[in-house]
């Protein structure tokens, strides 16, 4: 979870990554962590959405912007958010960046590629 609670500030920008088992899942995860470290937004726990954890659900409802980063075409983050009732979010899928499941090494280059695409989507 993110490192800090904001008191009485505007809604947070939340980043959900699939963090899946495949290479692209790891790239999505690392990109989300990089975006958090760089202050672009705050990575939040997708498992908390799946588990309908009240604090995570309510915080997500209050988010100003949400980006879902899916490693592959199964779109687990997108589906998870939608099934929890969230409709307004940006969706980034790594396949659209040419990162194919099982054939994409977890390199700094690939992580930066995903993070930069996410930043462009926020603009």
């Amino acid at each position, binding site marked *: *979870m*993110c490192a*800090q*609670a*904001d*008191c*009485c*500030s505007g*809604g*947070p920008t939340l980043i959900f990554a699939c963090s899946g088992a495949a290479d692209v899942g790891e790239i999505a995860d690392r990109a989300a962590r990089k975006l958090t470290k760089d202050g672009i937004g*705050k990575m*939040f*726990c997708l498992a*908390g959405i799946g588990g309908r*954890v*009240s*604090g*995570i*659900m*309510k*915080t997500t*409802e*209050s988010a100003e912007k949400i980006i879902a980063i899916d490693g592959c075409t199964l779109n687990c983050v997108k589906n998870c958010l939608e099934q929890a009732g969230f409709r307004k979010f940006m969706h980034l899928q790594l396949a659209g960046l040419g990162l194919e499941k099982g054939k994409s090494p977890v390199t700094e280059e690939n992580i930066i590629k995903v993070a930069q695409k996410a930043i462009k989507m926020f603009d």
Partner: protein
Amino acid sequence: MKNIQILGTGCPKCKKLVENAEVAAKALGIEYSLEKVTQISEIMKFGVMMTPALAIDGQVKCVGKVISPDEIKKMLT
């Protein structure tokens, strides 16, 4: 007995939410306990990133805003 928790570090909005929660609980005449959770580390355990927030019996009901006594009453019933 309802366990009401107000999550917030103690700014005026947090205090207002405490006040509204007390008004709501007293108006309903229910048994309740009211706890102020002011430590960021404890607030984070709820998965809450924005305060003030209100939890009832451990379930977060609202985040990042001050809600009225009437809204809190609905949550308590």
